[in-house]
């Protein structure tokens, strides 16, 4: 048994024993830790992993609590019937709010969460039907298999079963196809879209998941204290959930439980000390609370959990099944068939014509190089081909199908895969998982099957495919290390493996040799050469003349957005226009 599993088992045993052995007071604290963990888990998923900062988590807790409060008191529903009602209400609100606000960029999103959570708070506080600021009292107790859970001890089990189910759901989700894509939402969404990930849909999905966790916490809270009023669902509490996540370790599942535990206990101790030592309460503990958070973040910025896990042995690497089925493959064009056509492609930025009537064709089994000095428009051309930027004029077609105006996601589906000039790997994910993301659109299991673990067969196939591509590029030995720990040259190769995992017809490489050392360049050239031999079509945008000249079949040379020469390397090398562009004019 590894240290990690031992820790988990000890934690579970302690949790099971706690309600029997601890005094009532501590069981109550434990209950509040559980409630906080559940809501904070949503923040970990949403903010820590998905990169969407939300101050509004408490509002969803409130929706869950108010739904059950109203349904059980006004309509006399059983709490168990009110639970799905509350979950449904929260999911519906999250869908509506998410559809409107999750497309907001940058700082608009956190602000919008403040805006709607404050609105909801003031709304509930002023609605007579929900008891306004006084709230709703007299909620029934929950009973389970005939046992009435009306004290802190028995309720503790219910709370922690929910917490564990919540943890399991997020854990399962993250270790799946959808989970890998979710982990790329933070700072890597352009890359994710280029591999067929619908990032907007995923954002909404994790927002809904976070809301469901919060609503479950609210349902539990309402039946624990048996009354609700707006205060526990205000903005301050939303901020506190964010605190819990950051203190625990915002990217870590365990961070939710640790963060909630530390903050609930801390607050309690501070209240106690303030009341006992100073005889007053209210102000001192808020000050101490704030000071402690500042000190903690100044000294352990990533939170408590990473501070501990850094000292543990690395987790078990992912197992790749030997007998995994292979993923579907697309039909490959015959060698020499035209796969990519650019016809008088134009892109303007205001008055600047960055790409001016560039035309070329790429045939199957060929490497075409696009070179030019800095500012020639190579990267813009690359972004046009991969669908990151829309065309101003001209046409692009892939395998005879028009690709104009398509999103990068749709272009990826046509069979184009790309790498990035600035390496876009998820540095904290293993090399294997990074490559597996490339095969995202060759599989289809979604979030629900991931949570219920109905995706294992397909997941095995994805990992096996990723491993196959790593073997193809010669990096299979590094599959279990974090991608960020590789040298830049190897990271570029991982990017190529990820692109290959999408089973592309055309490989677009954006300055793959930039920043590589001499023998790394040689290894890269050998790899590309062998891919060509296998029939892959490659378009390579490069800067490094030597690298390109010895590798490509044909070249397009650009300067100031225009094509100035094209042809086989030997002819282009002696072209007067090219010499002028590179050497500053005929001498």
């Amino acid at each position, binding site marked *: 048994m590894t240290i990690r599993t031992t820790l988990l088992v000890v934690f579970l045993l302690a949790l099971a024993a706690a309600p029997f052995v601890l005094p009532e007071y501590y069981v109550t604290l434990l209950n509040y830790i559980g409630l906080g963990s559940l809501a904070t888990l949503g923040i970990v998923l949403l903010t820590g992993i998905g990169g969407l900062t939300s101050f509004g988590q408490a509002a969803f807790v409130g929706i869950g609590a108010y739904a059950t409060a109203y349904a059980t008191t006004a309509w006399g529903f059983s709490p168990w019937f009110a639970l799905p009602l509350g979950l449904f209400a929260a999911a519906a609100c999250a869908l509506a709010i998410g559809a409107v606000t999750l497309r907001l960029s940058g700082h608009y999103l956190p602000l*919008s969460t403040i805006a709607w959570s404050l*609105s909801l708070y003031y709304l509930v506080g002023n609605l007579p039907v929900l008891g306004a600021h006084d709230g709703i009292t007299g909620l029934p107790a929950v009973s389970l298999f005939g046992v009435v859970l009306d004290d802190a001890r028995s309720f503790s089990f219910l709370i922690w079963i929910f917490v564990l189910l919540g943890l399991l759901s997020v854990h399962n989700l993250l270790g799946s196809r959808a989970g890998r894509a979710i982990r790329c939402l933070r700072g890597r969404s352009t890359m994710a879209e280029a591999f067929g990930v619908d990032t907007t849909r995923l954002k909404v999905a994790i927002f809904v998941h976070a809301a469901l966790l919060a609503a479950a916490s609210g349902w539990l809270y309402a039946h624990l204290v048996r009354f609700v009023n707006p205060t526990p669902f205000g903005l301050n509490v939303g901020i506190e959930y964010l605190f819990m996540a950051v203190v625990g370790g915002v990217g870590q599942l365990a961070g939710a439980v640790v963060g909630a535990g530390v903050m609930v206990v801390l607050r309690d101790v501070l209240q106690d000390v303030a009341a006992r030592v100073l005889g007053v309460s209210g*102000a001192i503990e*808020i000050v101490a609370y704030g000071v402690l*958070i500042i000190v903690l973040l100044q000294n352990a910025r990533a939170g408590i959990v990473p501070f501990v896990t850094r000292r543990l042995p690395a987790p078990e690497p992912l197992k790749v099944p030997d007998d995994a089925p292979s993923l579907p493959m697309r039909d490959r064009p015959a060698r020499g068939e035209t796969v990519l056509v650019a016809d008088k492609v134009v892109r303007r930025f205001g008055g600047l014509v960055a790409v001016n009537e560039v035309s070329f064709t790429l045939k199957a089994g060929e490497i075409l190089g696009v070179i030019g000095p800095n500012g020639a428009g190579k990267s813009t051309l690359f972004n046009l081909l991969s669908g990151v930027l829309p065309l101003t004029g001209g046409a692009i077609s892939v395998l005879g199908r028009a690709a104009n105006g398509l999103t990068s996601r749709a272009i990826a589906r046509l069979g184009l895969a790309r790498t990035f000039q600035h390496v876009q790997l998820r540095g904290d994910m293993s090399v294997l998982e990074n490559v597996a993301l490339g095969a995202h659109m060759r599989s289809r299991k979604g979030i629900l099957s991931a949570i219920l673990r109905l995706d294992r067969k397909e997941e095995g196939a994805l990992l096996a495919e990723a491993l196959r591509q790593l073997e193809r590029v010669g990096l299979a030995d590094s599959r279990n290390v974090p991608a960020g720990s590789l040298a830049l040259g190897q990271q570029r190769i991982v990017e190529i493996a990820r692109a290959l995992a999408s089973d592309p017809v055309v490989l677009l490489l954006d300055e793959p040799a930039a920043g590589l050392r001499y023998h790394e360049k040689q290894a890269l050239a050998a790899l590309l050469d062998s891919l060509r031999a296998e029939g892959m079509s490659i378009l390579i945008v490069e800067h490094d003349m030597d690298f390109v000249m010895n590798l490509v079949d044909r070249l397009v040379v650009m300067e100031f957005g225009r094509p100035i020469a094209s042809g086989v390397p030997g002819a282009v090398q002696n072209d007067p226009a090219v010499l002028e562009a590179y050497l500053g004019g005929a001498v």
Partner: protein
Amino acid sequence: MNSIIALLLIQDGLTMGAVYALLALVLVMVFSVTRVILVAQGELVSYGALTMASLQAGHLPGTALIAVAGGVIAAAMELWAYARGPRSRTHLVAAALYVLVPLAVFGLVAALAPQGSGAFVRVLLTLLIVVPLGPILYRVAFQPLASAPVLVLLIVAVALHFVLTGLGLIAFGAEGVRVAPLIDGMLRFGPYFLSAQALFTIAITLALIAALFVFFGSTLSGKALRATAFNEVGARLVGISTTGSGLLAFSLAALIGTVSGILIGSFATIYYDTGFIIGLKGFVAAILGGLGSYPLAAFGAVLVGLLESGSSFFASAFKDVLVFALIIPILMWRSFSAGHAEEEEE
């Protein structure tokens, strides 16, 4: 609603909007220079109002003591940095300033406060007490985290807000205060009344905005701040101290927060925790400007002010619902018209 009420509402909206505009400008500036979303800006506003009111009542404001305590902590951090080397004299000078300035102010206030003094002296004392808190807060809370992600800085800013709120409660108690207006009286135009203090507030705001404009456009420090905001690494390479820029940005934030507090305190009752919602509305205005554009932030602030005064008349119970809910469509418009989303590195 008749035109008299309409004028009153517009006057209210514009006055509050002017103050929000000041706060929004500061938030934009602090964010672009230090990447800190200064949630605690609101506390500097309430400290300004509470300190002024306390001086008007002839008391010694607790903020003077808070500044001394903060200064001692900041000085200790400077000495610690000195002890761990490089033994730069700057640390010693800074440590001395952090201790001596708040102490000198404390002495001055203790001597002057009970005597009762003119409005001008009180404004000056208030500024002397609260403004040093700006650099002290930056030194203590944010300087050690200069390279942290925006989310961590935001959490620290929220924690700082808690600290300052708690200290405010200890120093001033839970009762609200009103600041006596600096200028009394009404101007009368036929059936319409304009409050002199409202006009004064708008005038001061415009003057401060103009001063900021000159500061950023024509002074070396202002240009250094802009350079830091534009490209922090580049600024460092040409010899601009980013720590110095942070300290300056926070000093300006404290200065403008205090002035806003003194002005706003004569329209609204200020409690130790009022600052948060005021700061939040400034924040809303700043976001409407995209946290980057000063004129748009000012425009957003006026919009928030008008929205608030309008909805307080039509549906006062739902005033804050309306203010915050109406922001969402505006946000969406801002977000979509801003176009391409920039990707933030983790």
